[in-house]
């Protein structure tokens, strides 16, 4: 073992109580800093994943529309052609418009999605039914659990759907459609569960006074989060239907995802400052140590140890503290994340609601650790630490042995 490492380890030894307490506090500072960054990043990633998953389950991955508010005719043929594109799992026609829904004099204004009953199941993942089944054959409708609550609707009830065409058609009257609720879905996402009703394309056309055509074709693709694969699929779709507008799920919900990314980055930057403060604790420990060990440094130099050896010993002393702090911080982060739900429940029992369910609508706090992010944190902290250790180490190394030895 090189002398510098030997000395650094000796200085860490908790035999000299004062030094060890200071060292311990520094290490705890680094542990907390590292753990907090990892936990926050993991929870932010978990939230992002949750949004992605919910959006990708409910919404189409690619939406093909006719330009300038036009209509896509022969939608079945277009769907079949689009399904030939490698990577496209399913295509479904869509006719969306804002309607008024009334039940027992309670009125809401959701977006109605008229779609193909058979194809819709392959594009929309609505397998979490709170009641009934996903059946939009004939004059049937499926709606979200929050809207059902709002309207006081149960499976088997009828609702009245008023067409928006009454507002624009001057010589025609569009009678409300009486639709039977066959299923109530629970996507776990309040926006989706309160803002949409799903019915057949025929019903939607009746409401819109259309005889044929749809407004859009919705596509479900394989692995939509794989950027490279997804780009290829989008490009193939654009080549196949060059006259139509093709929009991706990221483009449609870009604001949400940008906000999430910005929020995550901001949190990391702010928390990094906390860690830098923690790292300064290590610098502080080293400064205390160099002052405390002045005569020993003088002795070492008198005995023939070089300034370089002394400097490396002190840098290593700080570096080892950071390494230990970082490793313990990573361990602590995993431990806390694994028990996050328990901790949040404990806080809730103590009256501290960290994630109120009615605000966040979450039964569990989502989290996911990305190993590369953990590595980034570890490398940055150790790098900062090494730099922060240099100043006191340099001070120790350039100490004049005669002056140091006189401080007896």
């Amino acid at each position, binding site marked *: 073992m090189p002398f510098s490492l030997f000395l650094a380890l000796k200085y860490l030894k908790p035999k000299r109580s004062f030094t060890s307490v200071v060292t311990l506090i520094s290490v705890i500072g680094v542990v907390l800093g590292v753990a907090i960054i990892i936990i926050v990043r993991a929870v932010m990633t978990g939230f992002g994943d949750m949004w992605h998953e919910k959006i990708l389950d409910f919404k189409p991955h690619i939406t093909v529309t006719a330009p300038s508010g036009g209509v896509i005719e022969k939608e079945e043929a277009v769907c079949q052609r689009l399904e030939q594109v490698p990577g496209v799992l399913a295509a479904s026609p869509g006719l969306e418009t804002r309607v008024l829904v009334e039940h027992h004099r309670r009125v809401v204004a959701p977006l109605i999605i008229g779609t193909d009953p058979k194809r819709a199941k392959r594009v929309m993942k609505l397998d979490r039914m709170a009641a009934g089944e996903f059946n939009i054959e004939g004059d049937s409708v499926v709606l979200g659990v929050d809207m059902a609550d709002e309207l006081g609707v149960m499976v088997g009830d009828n609702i009245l759907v008023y067409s928006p065409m009454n507002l624009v058609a001057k010589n025609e009257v569009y009678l409300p459609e009486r639709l039977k609720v066959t299923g109530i879905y629970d996507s776990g996402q309040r926006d989706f569960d309160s803002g949409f009703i799903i019915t057949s394309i025929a019903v939607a056309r009746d409401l819109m006074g259309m005889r044929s055509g749809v407004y859009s074709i919705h596509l479900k693709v394989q692995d939509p989060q794989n950027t490279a694969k997804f780009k290829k699929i989008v490009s193939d779709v654009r080549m196949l239907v060059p006259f139509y507008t093709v929009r991706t799920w990221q483009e449609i919900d870009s604001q949400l995802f940008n906000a999430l990314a910005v929020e995550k980055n901001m949190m990391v930057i702010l928390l990094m400052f906390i860690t830098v403060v923690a790292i300064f604790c290590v610098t502080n420990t080293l400064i205390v140590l160099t002052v405390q060990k002045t005569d020993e440094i003088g*002795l070492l130099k*008198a*005995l*023939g140890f070089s300034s370089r050896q002394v400097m490396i010993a002190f840098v290593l002393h700080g570096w080892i503290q950071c390494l230990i702090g970082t490793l313990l911080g990573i361990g602590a982060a995993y431990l806390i994340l694994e028990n996050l739900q328990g901790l949040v429940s404990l806080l809730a029992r103590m009256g501290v609601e960290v994630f109120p369910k009615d605000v966040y609508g979450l039964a569990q706090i989502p989290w996911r650790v990305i190993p590369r992010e953990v590595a980034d944190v570890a490398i940055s902290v150790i790098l900062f630490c090494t730099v922060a250790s240099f100043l006191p180490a340099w001070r120790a190394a350039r100490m004049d042995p*005669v002056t140091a*030895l006189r401080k007896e």
Partner: protein
Amino acid sequence: MLEATDLHKTYVLPHKRVDVLKGASLSVGKGERVAIVGRSGSGKSTLLHVLGGLDRPEVGEVRIDGQPLYAVSQRARTAVRASKIGFVFQSYHLLPEMDVTENVMLPAMTGALKITRAQMRQRALVLLEQVGLADRATHMPLELSGGEQQRVALARALINEPALILADEPTGNLDRMTGAQIMELLFGLSCSRDLALVMVTHSPETAALCDRVMELAGGMLAAQT
């Protein structure tokens, strides 16, 4: 063995200039023991530091075995210090985090001897045996008495088999009896190893045991009659 010629050393204090050494010269042969005496503040410790390559004089040179100390780089001077000079201080200066054996091994860890860690340990244990502390090898310095700590410091000064020992009041912190024991040990080891010894002391009895006594006064060294 040790040749110091025309050493000048000045300290510049705020509004004051102190000429500590003003042409001090000293020659010490192999195995010779020289005591340096003088009043407090006369510059004895400074002289010892200059002789040991720790404090560069403004004028003059120090040679160890013909090798100049100050005409070479700091790295080379450090290497000479590690391999040829052993230091014994009044305050022992043992590292409290290391046990007795590790303290003795310290100078060998500079790499001056090019021996393995096991060989260093072996050599340290032999030296501890010679200074009568074999049974204290695993003790920590703070578990030892002052006399025992100085013995450890003696063993430490010898581990690199230096040709010269520079001792700065080695008995200054010890009672008369313990001091006498340490001196007996130091002289015995110096004799058996044919080591040159330059020792700063306030004690006339200790100085009288040396081959020569030099007095530092007015920045100059002169043989005491």
